[in-house]
């Protein structure tokens, strides 16, 4: 890593911490959500939830929530305002291209999502007796593809939104329907079949199922991994084509 990339990442990370919204919504909120839901559900294994406790059902959902929060609600407004205020344009007059700033932003948010994931797994394990992912490789793959898909969508929002505010609105509009299909309000196990089939093809539905399968010891379904990969590739291409520096 060159010194410019290192300095850029370090200073962007400080700005991320100063902003606080990313930490609160991407890290603290998912953990608190799991604690509340876990406490509500207790140790009861629910037949309707494929025999899982409420906490075990929600561990992958809050992990997906954290990734989506950071990818869709935290990152795009920052990049939108950077474009709006000429930060990217200013940088394009220096020897370091502004694409490095995008890379630094994605890296910081993915790291925070990874920390949130570990935190949620630890809380689940210690407080609610939820087993750590049994198929660790599958779980890592699911996390990686989910992050790739969701951050590619976030970058596309950042590419299209002319201002920070527009990015904020677009991120929220994308986030809530996706969270519905992830099962935040109605877990996938209790969704009607038709709804679950639709959910299979949404990035968050596929992400939650792939994370849940690997948590229970199965390798994720090819369908869910393929859905995430298609979103990742498609939106990366879109973001790359559409991104404007000013």
């Amino acid at each position: 890593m060159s010194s410019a990339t290192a300095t850029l990442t370090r200073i962007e990370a400080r700005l991320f911490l100063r902003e606080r919204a990313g930490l609160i919504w991407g890290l603290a909120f998912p953990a608190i959500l799991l604690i509340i839901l876990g406490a509500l559900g207790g140790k009861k294994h629910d037949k309707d939830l494929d025999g899982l406790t409420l906490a075990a059902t929600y561990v992958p959902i809050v992990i997906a929530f954290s990734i989506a929060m950071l990818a869709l609600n935290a990152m795009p407004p920052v990049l939108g305002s950077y474009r709006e205020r000429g930060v990217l344009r200013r940088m394009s007059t220096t020897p370091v291209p502004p694409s490095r700033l995008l890379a630094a932003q994605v890296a910081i948010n993915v790291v925070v999502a990874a920390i949130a994931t570990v935190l949620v797994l630890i809380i689940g394990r210690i407080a609610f007796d939820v087993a750590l992912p049994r198929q660790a490789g599958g779980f890592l793959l699911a996390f990686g593809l989910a992050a790739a898909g969701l951050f590619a969508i976030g970058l596309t929002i950042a590419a299209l939104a002319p201002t920070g505010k527009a990015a904020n609105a677009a991120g929220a509009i994308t986030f809530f329907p996706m969270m519905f299909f992830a099962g935040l309000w109605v877990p996938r196990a209790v969704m009607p079949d038709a709804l679950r089939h639709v959910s299979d093809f949404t990035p968050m539905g596929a992400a939650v199922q792939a994370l849940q399968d690997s948590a229970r010891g199965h390798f994720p379904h090819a369908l869910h991994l393929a859905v995430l990969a298609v979103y990742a590739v498609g939106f990366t291409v879109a973001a790359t084509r559409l991104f404007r520096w000013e």
Partner: protein
Amino acid sequence: MPVIEVTNLRKNYGGHDAVRDVSFSVEPGEIFGILGPNGAGKTTTVECLAGLRHPDGGRIRVLGLDPQRDHEQLRQLVGIQLQESQLPDNIQVDEALELYASFYQDPADWRALRDALGLSSKRTARFGKLSGGQKQRLSIALALVGNPKVAILDELTTGLDPAARRETWDLIEGVRERGVTIVLVTHFMQEAEHLCERVAVIDTGRVVAVGSPAGLVTRVDAEQRLRFYPSADLHDRLLTDLPQVTAVTRHGQQVLVTGTGDVLGAVTSVLARAGIVAEQLRVEQTSLDDAFIALTGQEI
């Protein structure tokens, strides 16, 4: 050899020529002004110089390099302060300087630069909390932190109060003394008169004049105006007979004489011979402002 050579530059935006025909050259170590009314094509011209825009015609060489083809090399050598380009609100002064210094192969000592630009008391202040003058000084520091050979400064003092503007001018003169060639885009005549060795006046995408500010003023050869209150009755004929006088008008008691050449000497001596004193005599000389209006047909 000139540091910057622009020949017949042309740049079109959506069927409209923002820059039609711009040529000028900038010599090493000079402060070169680009003057013009809003929308004249000043910013587009410097954006082409900086390699941010692709010209539709003409040729540009900066330090012998082509801004499009050799942009990687050139970005190490040219520092730019752009209009309306900002930093994140939450970044601190020191962080911004350290960050921009890390972008260059051979950066200046950013701490020394910060102190030289009077920002040492603002090291941990956030960009969003700085005053307009402090933001501008930080922006100049960022343009210089890469140790550039050429600095391009666009609308440097717009929005600053007169005291901050004066301070900024002193800074720019200090930068020139480091041997940096400076291209200054401005629409302030006073700024150009104060700082620039030479200026190019751009109007509707064309260069209408290049020269020293004083040279432009004499080239326009605009008229001088005298205003005074005669101590006794004065016949206009006395003045209009003088070859230097072009017109005499009156505003109540006040006489306004316009003329060319040594109109002041001619008028005062003819008045002295007639025994008339020119009370409250004021002479209005042509300024770069007048020259600019004469060249472009509009006020800034």
